[in-house]
């Protein structure tokens, strides 16, 4: 009897959650006929936004990897004062409303912002540029990479790198030829998560970079703009975003290194 109650409660919880998560996706997918969907997707505004989204999110992912790896390495292998503060700092964007991030970015890197004068001296004006879109995406996407990469690097047993060092490997060799290959599944998983997050970025972008087709209007912004006078176009764009995001995450699950999604510690594998 007790078991039955537990089972019913469990199924109810699963069903409720599935409803909340899956129903919106399904509703988006079934709203337009395939023909209308294709017709909408061929609109220039959609293609422009798609191109800009891919361009910026890929640039973001590259930047996040290049800038995030050293930080992840530091967090995973070193003990230092202020480590917890640094850890919290790189995690904050996960919980911060993106609009707040956008206001912060404006007040920091806008031309009237804290760093605005210095940037201007270099001839750089960030707001309303594609670069601002990338910065907004980097801001919100970095934590996903760093937490996965940190966990991955931390899970590599010390003896591997120590053995390499004993055998005369330089720290650089040890990192790129021993540590990184062993942590690669988590690093790639983190990169994919960042990419997906960057693709979906909205609040920080519209606040910091503005909303101009071809320059700063990424797909989520185009959805919002289209929603106000062209529901079909908005739905078509949304479907595209759902499919893209779903594919990235599903690809992660099926990738040979797929187990590492979400920063689950990677098991070091012998070679």
């Amino acid at each position, binding site marked *: 009897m007790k078991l039955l109650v537990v089972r019913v409660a469990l199924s109810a919880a699963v069903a409720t959650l599935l409803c909340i998560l899956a129903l919106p996706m399904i509703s988006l997918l079934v709203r337009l006929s395939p023909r209308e969907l294709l017709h909408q997707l061929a609109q220039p505004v959609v293609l422009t936004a798609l191109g800009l989204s891919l361009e910026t999110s890929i640039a973001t992912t590259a930047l996040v990897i290049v800038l995030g790896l050293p930080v992840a390495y530091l967090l995973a292998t070193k003990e230092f004062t202020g480590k917890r503060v640094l850890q919290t700092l790189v995690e904050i964007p996960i919980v911060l409303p993106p609009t707040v991030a956008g206001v912060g970015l*404006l*007040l920091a890197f*806008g*031309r*009237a912002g804290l760093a605005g004068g210095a940037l201007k001296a270099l001839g750089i004006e960030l*707001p*309303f540029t594609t670069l601002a879109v990338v910065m907004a995406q980097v801001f919100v996407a970095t934590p996903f990479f760093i937490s996965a990469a940190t966990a991955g690097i931390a899970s590599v047993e010390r003896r591997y790198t120590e053995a390499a060092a004993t055998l005369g490997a330089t720290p650089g060799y040890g990192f790129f030829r021993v540590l990184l290959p062993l942590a690669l599944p988590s690093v790639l998983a983190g990169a994919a998560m960042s990419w997906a997050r960057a693709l979906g970025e909205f609040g920080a972008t*519209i606040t910091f*970079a*503005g*909303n*101009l087709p071809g*320059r*700063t209007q990424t797909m989520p912004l185009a959805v*919002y*703009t289209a*929603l*106000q*006078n062209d529901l079909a176009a908005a739905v078509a764009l949304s479907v595209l975003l759902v499919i893209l995001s779903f594919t990235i995450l599903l690809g992660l699950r099926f990738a040979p290194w797929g187990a590492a999604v979400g920063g689950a510690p990677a098991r070091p594998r012998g070679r």
Partner: protein
Amino acid sequence: MWLVLALLLQQPKHLAVYAAASLSDAFNEMADSLQRRDPDLHIDFNFAGSQVLVLQLGQGAAADVFASADDRWMQTARDSGLIDGTPQTFARNRLVVIVPKGNPARIGKLQDLARSGVKLVLAADAVPAGRYAREAIFRLAWSAGYPPDYSRRVLANVVSYEENVRSVAAKVQLGEADAGFVYVSDVTPAVARQVRRFDLPDTADVIASYPIALVRHSTNTEAAKTFIDFVLSPSGQAVLTKNRFLPGR
């Protein structure tokens, strides 16, 4: 869990007013005086671009009053059967150009908006303020003293189409945009300290008109009517005038 759900679903009987973003200061002030008269009256505002409000009404949002920043979106709402009765124009508003106090692009006259490199921010086309701004730019292009390709060059300077007029004001206020088209009512005392204002010449003087109406599926019609009556009353009109609106008629 049920308690949480019940709390989430249980809505106390509040009056829900859906109003154009430009009305936020004036309507908040009116709500204060209304609530001083009747402490039991609770007014919840939803301020956004009129186009967003119509979208939300169309999706069945539980609103009681709708106040739009142009007749077009009010008409759309009526055509969709969302409105009860005849809307009444309760205010008008004038379009102006604002530049940051520091005037980074050295805008001295409206002709300068066509100079290449000026960072101009407009509200999006669907936003009433965006439509009015375009209209003003096209009218300027036809005015004496403006080059014939004025509108093309000005529109080429747009760096962002914002989702409501208050975001336009904010971008100029922050000094990030060189210029923006907003309503004169958006130049609140706080904004005024940080911007310079250019009035449009008579040839391009675009006047926005604001209709207000009862929402058909209102569950609080009595309070809704009280609110609408107050907006149209001399006291309501005084609040609007104080907030730099022009009278409705």
